[in-house]
């Protein structure tokens, strides 16, 4: 184990993968690697080592997404970095109608081993266009895998799985996570998809969160502890495929569920989780399922409004206290 930042852990996974597999090419390499808190010497060595496999393509997101599919079906394992998720909207057609469809429509002849990486979330004054969390949209489309890691160790292990996966995988991270630190296992390891993790055990209420919201949920759990509420924090880690069991098992134990979601709640990942639990763990529920998310507005720029809109530990604590009437 070594303490590393989230960015370093992702970079580790990429390095190991590229070392092992010569068919991996990175598109949008500069913005993925540079300025993400890596030691400059590591950055330089990495770039020098893989000159022909690191590309900085034109600002043509649409064709880039498509080039990914075309080269993946032809035998490469492309890793495509869109940067901010708002830019990927220009490529939605290719992601959904080509990447997600190819394997099924070919009756299994084709495989699409490709990773689309993007940053989601309220990064801090990203304004309306650069604060978006589109994960539920991708999850709504069959054929795409959607991963939302929260910790450095998860980022490394899940990224190894994403790169090895023969399916198109949306690897969605949060800019605010890049500098966060955590213990990361040394060497090569992979964390399977559809395997959620209880990040903190508790008995009074289940809090489900993913990505940056896991950190807020853990903060909230600390604060709730002081109020005598013992919260369990569950991180499903992947949206598609989804580990419903880890959530339902927890709810069966605690009888209460609060979901912390960074996106707008309408048709969000939180809504789907709420619906699943409401249907499959109805008998265990002692109170309504509460969703805490951002209001249904474009993210405002002004810091006062942004703070008001951002789901965080404080809003979660309020919601839990209200639910438990404490």
């Amino acid at each position, binding site marked *: 184990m070594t303490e590393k930042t989230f960015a370093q852990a992702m970079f580790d996974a990429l390095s190991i993968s590229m070392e092992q597999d010569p068919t991996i090419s990175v598109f949008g390499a500069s913005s993925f690697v540079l300025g993400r808190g890596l030691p400059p010497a590591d950055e330089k060595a990495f770039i020098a080592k893989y000159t*022909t496999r690191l590309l900085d393509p034109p600002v043509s997101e649409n064709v880039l997404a498509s080039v990914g599919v075309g080269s993946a079906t032809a*035998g490469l394992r492309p890793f495509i970095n869109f940067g901010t998720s708002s830019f990927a909207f220009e490529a939605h057609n290719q992601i959904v109608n*080509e990447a997600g469809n190819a394997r099924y429509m070919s009756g299994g002849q084709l495989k699409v081993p490709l990773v689309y990486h993007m940053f989601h979330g309220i990064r801090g004054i990203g304004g309306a266009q650069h604060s978006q969390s589109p994960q539920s949209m991708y999850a709504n489309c069959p054929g795409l895998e959607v991963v939302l890691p929260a910790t450095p160790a998860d980022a490394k292990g899940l990224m190894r799985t994403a790169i090895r996966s023969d399916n198109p995988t949306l690897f969605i991270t949060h800019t605010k996570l890049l500098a966060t630190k955590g213990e990361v296992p040394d060497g090569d390891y992979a964390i399977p998809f559809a395997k959620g993790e209880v990040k903190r055990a508790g008995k009074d209420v289940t809090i489900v969160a993913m990505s940056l919201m896991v950190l807020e949920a853990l903060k909230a759990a600390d604060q709730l502890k002081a109020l005598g509420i013992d919260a369990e924090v569950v991180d499903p880690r992947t949206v598609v495929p989804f580990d419903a069991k880890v959530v339902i098992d927890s709810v069966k134990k605690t009888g209460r569920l609060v979901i912390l979601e960074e996106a707008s709640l309408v048709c969000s990942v939180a809504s789907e989780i709420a619906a699943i639990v409401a249907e499959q763990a109805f008998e265990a529920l002692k109170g309504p399922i509460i969703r805490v998310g951002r209001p249904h507005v474009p993210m405002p720029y002004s810091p006062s409004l942004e703070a008001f809109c951002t789901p965080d530990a404080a809003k979660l604590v309020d919601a839990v206290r209200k639910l438990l009437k404490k």
Partner: protein
Amino acid sequence: MPEIVSREARLSLLERMLLMRRFEEAVIHAAAKHKYIGRNHLYIGHEGTGAAVMAQLKPGDLAHTTHRNHGHIVGRGADPGRALAEIMGREGGLCGGRGGTWHMTDTSVGFQSTSAMVGGSIGLATGGGFACKQLGQGNVSVALFGDGVLDEGISYEAFNFASQYSLPILFMCENNEKPGRRETSMLAADRLLDIPKALKIHTMTVDGGDVEAVHAAVGEALARIRKDQVPVFIESQIEAWPGSHQHKPEFTTGETDISMAWDTGKITGPHADWIRQEPILRYVRKLLAEKAAAQADIEALDKKVQAKMAKARDFAEASPFPQAEGAILGAFA
């Protein structure tokens, strides 16, 4: 560059064209017989282009195509029975009946993908070209698409990408826009070629009704692509089949009668002009005129193709529909 000289090569080219044609005729028959076989965009009239391209691709080369794909797939060597079964949604189809006419794939002959999105194939082919270059085995990627694709922004992005990264790609545009008819594409450019040219891609134009002319152009292009690792754009000008816009395919110009090549008196009806210039009859006339083949040779060749298609039809008709639970399998590897 590869002028076709040998008689065998010329007859083989004709056979490929005939197979493409007889295949589409089988589709029309199937459409009349079965309620749903999807919305087919037939390849009739395009054979001169598809055959010339497919005849010259090597093993390992990749092809990406569009909704008007039947000719490409069988022309490249996919089993016509399995292709027809796919169109009819049967388990024995190339994709197990999941893809249908718009999504036929056969990776065993380098057929990567068929996309029913206008502009779908051009980006995928660019990715294929990138893979060919990275993998370094000397293969090329071919994008086959219609003129409407030039309306889509992704085609510019793809040309720019291919040009900038020097990718081995043949952009094969089958332009069947008919002067005087409502434009199938609405392009301000006077000539399609001006667009790839603006992005520094070598361009060529060819008469798509003349299979040997297309063959020569494609041969030259492929040689250049393989040698210099650059993209080339070819516009093949095609006289659109008068029936090609129908969702329910019909024998608008009749079932092909190969003897019309020498017995021109048989050509009648509202579409006589189209039939007179269609690429198969035109090629047969040329072969006969140049004494590369006799009428009997041509008839024998056609019989051979028809027998092959009869078998293909039997296979497709006999193939069952997939089991219902099959619908939920296969989305993920």
